């Protein structure tokens, strides 16, 4: 009889435990902090002509909508541009600047620029990481003869540094965007 008493006590305790669980209101919204929705590459010509903007914008992050890719104009033959890359998380408001985080952890990141064979464009790194190896959120782009093709920007996380280019760099891809551009 004693056993049954103890048991029924245990059951009552258990049930009351179950019923007073944390039954709060609706859950908290999560706006992902590390999502990169927007990459904007600003190409400012050294000769003062028109600035060109390349942008990939994916407001739903890794969602069903594909990124919207825009290129505001054509590159001018023989012109050198100062390139700057800005990464934003626009799922938050105000938008969060992810470039800052990449620059803070510069030794763990590197941008690579891949130019398709038909396009007469060369690139050069414009900034380095804390160890003096290329980082690439800033770069110099020189447009050659009239041509057309794609520029692909790849941000790798934890690549081998220093490296001989993207083929051997390894690491994990954080960003990969291709833009169709023309040199005129």
């Amino acid at each position, binding site marked *: 009889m004693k056993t049954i008493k103890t048991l029924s006590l245990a059951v009552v305790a258990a049930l009351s435990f179950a019923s007073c669980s944390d039954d709060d209101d609706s*859950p908290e919204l999560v706006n992902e902090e590390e999502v990169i929705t927007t990459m904007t590459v600003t190409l400012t010509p050294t000769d003062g002509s028109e600035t060109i903007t390349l942008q990939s914008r994916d407001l739903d992050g890794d969602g069903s909508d594909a990124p919207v890719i825009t290129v505001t104009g054509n590159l001018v033959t023989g012109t050198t541009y100062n390139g700057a890359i800005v990464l934003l998380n626009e799922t938050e408001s105000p938008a969060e600047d992810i470039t800052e985080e990449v620059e803070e952890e510069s030794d763990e990141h590197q941008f690579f620029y*891949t130019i398709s064979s038909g396009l007469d464009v060369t690139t050069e790194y414009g900034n380095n990481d804390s160890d003096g190896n290329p980082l690439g959120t800033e770069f110099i782009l020189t447009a050659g003869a009239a041509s057309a093709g794609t520029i692909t920007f790849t941000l790798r996380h934890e690549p081998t540094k220093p490296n001989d280019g993207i083929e051997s760099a390894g690491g994990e891809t954080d960003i990969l965007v291709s833009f169709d551009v023309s040199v005129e």
Partner: protein
Amino acid sequence: MRIYALMVLLLCSLSSFSQICNNTLSGKVIDLHDGTALVGAMIIIAGSEQTVVTDINGNFSIQNLCDQTYAIQISHPYCLTSGHKIKVDGNTVKTFQLEHHLEALNEIVLKGHAQNKKSNTLAQNTLSGEKIEQFSSGSLGDALNSLSGVSSLNTGSTVVKPIINGLHSSRVILVNNGVRMEDQEWGVEHAPNIDINTAENITVLKGASAIQYGGDAIAGVIVTAPEKIFIKDSLYGKTLLSASSNGRGSTLTSKLTKSDDNGWFGTVQGTIKRYGDFEAPDYVLSNTGTFERNASVRIGFNKFNYGIEGYYSFYKNEIGILTASHIGGAEDQVRAINSTVPLVLKDFTYAITYPKQDITHHLARIKAFKKFNGFGKVNLQYDFQQNQRLEFDIRVGDDSDTPSLDLVLKTHTLLIDIDSNLSENLSLKSGIMARYQDNFADPSTGVRRLIPDYEKYDIGVYGISTVQLQDNWLLEAGARFDYTYMDVFKFYRTSFWESRNYAALFPEIVVEEYDNQLLTNPQYNFFNASGTVGSTYSFNDKLKFFFNYSLASRVPNPSELFSEGLHHSASRIELGDLSFKSEIANKATLTLQKEGTVFGFSIQPFINNIHNFIVIEPTKVEQTIRGNFQVWEYRQTNAQLLGVDIDATYALSPHFNFNHQFSLVKGYDRQGDSALISMPPVNTTNEITYENPKANNLKLALQSTYAFRQNEYPNTNFEVYIAQSESFELVDVSTPPDAYHLLNFRSSIDVPITKKSNLSVGFNVTNLLNTRYRNYLNSLRYYADDLGRNFLFNLKFNY
């Protein structure tokens, strides 16, 4: 004390003087178990010289007693002597029960085993304690892998999930120590949170027969049972130490049991496992170490008629995930697949870095039983589980030490079972289950929830009846009904919500709208029926035929219903569907089993037709700012699984034995008319063993396992544009790896130390030839080879 006794004596004698003492105490002495009369039981009245013996009908009668309380002692040759206090008030009649058959207690224990059989009409595959000890350093999945028809799904070396006849995850019910495990195994990379060292034996039922645990075991049920503790005064334990070369680590597990003849018993147990990076034949598998710490306590009180037991276990496991498997998109996948070595190679280390999993599982259970004469046995159990799963991804900035996934799942379950023998040949087991579950996904991870917050309520009732038609023919039938209510709070991205047409289909569940997300409150009611019918026929002592048919219904799990987004660890976008219905499986299994000292075998063909089977498979490639990702979508279809499991043993000589196992399973999508993804390839294991009990119980075994190539698979390859080469390249994610053959060696010898303790020393080698291989069911097969040679040294100390 002495004065008190004197006082009592004095009072007694006083009262005897003051009363008329012509009362009669009469009655009967019967067996506690079956109520039969006990002949020749001796009854002694303390304080008087009176002694009587029961007659042929168990009756007795004692004359000349006063109106007072007497101390009576009853003894019988085959019973525990018992003492009673009886108040005599006039002529009194009393029946005494004695626990009979002391000498036959072992027989009763054996009968108990038979009643504990998980199913009467399904041939059981059981892993014995000895076999479990061989896998002391491994996982539950590794150990079960050694049974025919059970394979494993791996996410690395230490995340191993059992697959029964081609199915896994939430289609397998895991009953650990009488508690159904609720450990978030809805993802492929969630292994069961069970310390294999707590189990005395493990039984696999390849069917839904164990409907007392749930009606949703589409694949089967795995039951781990704790040690049986006998009611006698003893103190014993064992300690196992296992050290391996691969992973350069060891496992230490220890158990101590104290039992008493008054019914009390207690067991404490603990395990610690520490391994560094495991190694493939040619390289270190970076970040695959593991650190596991478990402990359990069991305390109880057992009598024949009633008992109560408490159990608590703590499981904590930190598991590294192969660094090279952490990739960022299809382009990385091409690089990884085309590379012959993993993309990340580092030196050996014990450190576990990101990505990793960190799991904590608490389990507490209290159960009690009471036997009622002529009615049966009533069992009552309450259990509580709390499972916390942390998954750490490689993250940047301030978040680098914050987990990407932080889930806490709490489960309360209350069970009441009644075992009753309706007649000599008919028994009925019935019960009711109530469960409440609460999942909380911590938003402070800063990552959108993979599994939403939800509350789930389950109520189930079941009954299983067993009829012994003839001595050699047994029939079993059971039915179960489950009701499940789910109350979910889930955020959806507006773009996904609209692309799925949910806006038109489920407008009523939207609670609130934010910028680009919606809060929804889906609620589900599922009414599921399940059942089992089976029969066993014994042609003779050795040859048996089993037939079992089971109907199982499984409620879709939260990942199947609600997934939408990038699953980082799988590097794919996973999409669930809000409109899923329950899966319903009809499985029929036949078994022909022959036991024998020279030759024995079992052949077990099965067919499993699953209506509304939920399968996740690649459907398209989605472009994101990180590049292209494969999209894996859940969908429902009708599936059919067919297969056969064969076991055979042949004694070549008194010392040499040959064992054979063969498993085949074919899975088809009957709607899409294609092969099902991730089906285990045909495999066979052959083993030669040498045993010599006289030579210190020397055991040697050479084992060969051969896994064929999986030739039936859906082609889900896709192409991706690679900027560097300016070409489209095929991402081959579906072609299965080649067949492989592994050799394993096992040996052990016993060394007696004292009368009561002995030492067993074992030496094993797995993958003896250091073969390079990749396993189709290992999700890391794209990135690295499987484990290379491992030397394993075991020490077992029994005391």
